[in-house]
């Protein structure tokens, strides 16, 4: 039986941030800023890069090299995109979460 990869909470957050940055381009700085804006927590760059590396090794995201700018010391950006597999895993994780939360009065939701 093929083992499924269970997404961690922070991995889901990073995947959602990448999806939310599809138009502007998702790279290290913008992903970190997006997460900080929406979750009110300030993840370290180290946490972002290790998560991105892990997601990429599982083929849940793919990356490509972008342009270099002077304020980056001439270093090129690395843009990330969620793959079809990543999208499916994210959807599955969200469905599992919603299924567990459904009907819990403690979350202020109606009985389902």
């Amino acid at each position, binding site marked *: 039986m093929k083992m499924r990869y269970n997404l961690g909470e922070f991995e889901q957050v990073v995947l959602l941030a990448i999806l939310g940055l599809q138009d502007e381009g998702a*790279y290290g700085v913008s992903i970190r800023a997006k997460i900080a804006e929406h979750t009110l927590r300030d993840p370290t760059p180290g946490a972002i890069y290790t998560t991105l590396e892990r997601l990429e090794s599982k083929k849940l995201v793919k990356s490509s090299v972008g342009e270099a700018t002077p304020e980056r010391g001439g270093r090129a*950006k690395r843009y990330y995109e969620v793959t079809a597999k990543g999208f499916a895993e994210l959807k599955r994780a969200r469905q599992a979460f919603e299924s567990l939360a459904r009907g819990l009065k403690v979350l202020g939701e109606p009985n389902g």
Partner: protein
Amino acid sequence: MGSKSISFALLTSVTSAERAAAIEGDLLEEREVNGTRWFVMNVVHTTFALFGLAVARAPFRTAALSVAAVLASCLMCPIVNAAFFGPEAWVPRPLLGFVAVIAFAVVIGASLVHFAGALGVRAAVAASALLFLMFAFAQVSGRLDRLSTDAVGLLREFATFAVNLGLGFCLYLGPLMIASGVVHMRRL
């Protein structure tokens, strides 16, 4: 920021040159807002975070390389002594001990870099760091039972310990990380 910056060298020791460049670029971009101290702290933190990921990805390779390297060290010391001073000289002598430590570092470093070609640079870097931790542990445990009781003696003991630890770092971890980084960059 040139390609030979310290931050780039640190990051390339734990990831590919291309990824290290992108990470350094991101951190440089944020340095404008957060300052140089933030930049330095996060270069170090990111290096350790990616190093941890490398160890987690290849725990068996890391353990195997570390054990092999330590065994090689243990075996080589008496062999080198015996080769120079005859079969009775199995106890390390100060000068020979120093020469031997350098020789071990070179041999172990060369072996690990050679292995890195087949098993991955991350595994070699992870192994060298574990080697350093083992060395530090051996230093601590070796000194605990014969610490002086007076303050000056205690201070001297710790000064010697710190020098040995620094020497160990320079001889083992530093060259290995640089060598691994150089080999890795050449492969790209």
